[in-house]
C-alpha cells in the first residue's frame, strides 16, 4: 500500500508534453512586465478566432483605447498565453508617433486557453483584457 502511494506521488512530478506554464511562472512574467501595478479590466479590444486550426499561427489583433498623443499614450502592451509551456508572447513598446495603439500579430497557442493582454498607459494605469480560444492543433510542441 505504501508503495502505491509513492508511485502516484512520483508520477505527479513527471512533466508531460502538454504541460502549461504554472501560475507562478505567469505571475512572475506579469510582475516583470508591470511591476506592482494593479490592472483594471477593459479599455482593450482583442480579436482572435474562436477556433484556430493551426496553433502555430493564430492571428491576434489588439486595439487599446488611447489618443496616442505626446501627453496621453499607451507606452507598452504585454501579451501572455497562460496555457503555453512558457507564458510570454511579446512585449510591445509604443511611442506617440503611432496613429493608434493597435497591433496585429500572430502567436503560438498550445491548447484551449484565454490570451491575456495588458496595456500600460503613460500615467501608470494598466488596463487588462482576455480572449478565450480553442485550437485544433497545438502550436508549441510539434
Amino acid at each position, binding site marked *: 500500500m505504501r508503495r502505491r502511494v509513492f508511485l502516484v506521488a512520483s508520477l505527479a512530478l513527471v512533466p508531460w*508534453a502538454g504541460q502549461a506554464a504554472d501560475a507562478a511562472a505567469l505571475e512572475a512574467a506579469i510582475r516583470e512586465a508591470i511591476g506592482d501595478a494593479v490592472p483594471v479590466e477593459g479599455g482593450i479590444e482583442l480579436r482572435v478566432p474562436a477556433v484556430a486550426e493551426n496553433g*502555430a*499561427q*493564430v492571428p491576434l489583433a489588439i486595439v487599446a483605447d488611447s489618443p496616442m498623443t505626446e501627453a496621453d499614450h499607451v507606452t507598452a502592451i504585454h*501579451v*501572455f*498565453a497562460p496555457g*503555453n*509551456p*512558457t*507564458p*510570454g*508572447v*511579446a*512585449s*510591445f*513598446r*509604443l*511611442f506617440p*508617433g*503611432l*496613429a*493608434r495603439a*493597435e*497591433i*496585429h*500579430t*500572430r*502567436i*503560438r*497557442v498550445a491548447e484551449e486557453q484565454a490570451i491575456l493582454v495588458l496595456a500600460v498607459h503613460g500615467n501608470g494605469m494598466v488596463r487588462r483584457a482576455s480572449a478565450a480560444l480553442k485550437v485544433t492543433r497545438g*502550436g*508549441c*510542441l*510539434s
Partner: protein
Amino acid sequence: MSTLPSTPRLRIPARARPGEVIELRMLIDHPMETGLRHDGSTAPPRDLIERLEVRRDGALVFAADLRNGTSPNPYHVVFLRMERSAEISVAWTDARGRTARASARVAVG
C-alpha cells in the same frame, strides 16, 4: 554587426496625404525555434528573433521584445500618421545579435 540570414519584408504605401494614417506590414522568414518543440525524434535548438524596431527618420516609433509565444515567420502590423515625407526603417535582431533590415520612403504631399 552580422546579418541575419532571413528575408525581411516591409509593406507600406509609397505615398500618403498629410495627416493620413498608413498601415505598416512587417514579415520576416524565421523558424522562431523555442527549443521546446520536438520534431519526431529531434528537438531543434533555440533560435529566436528577440527584437523588432521601427523607426521614422531615425526616431523609434515601435519596438517589440519577442518571446516563445510569437509565431514562426513573425508578422506585425502597426499604424502611423504621416505629416511629412519620411524614411521608415525596420530592424529584426536575433539572440546572437544578428540583424536584418528593411526600409522604404513614404512621400507625403
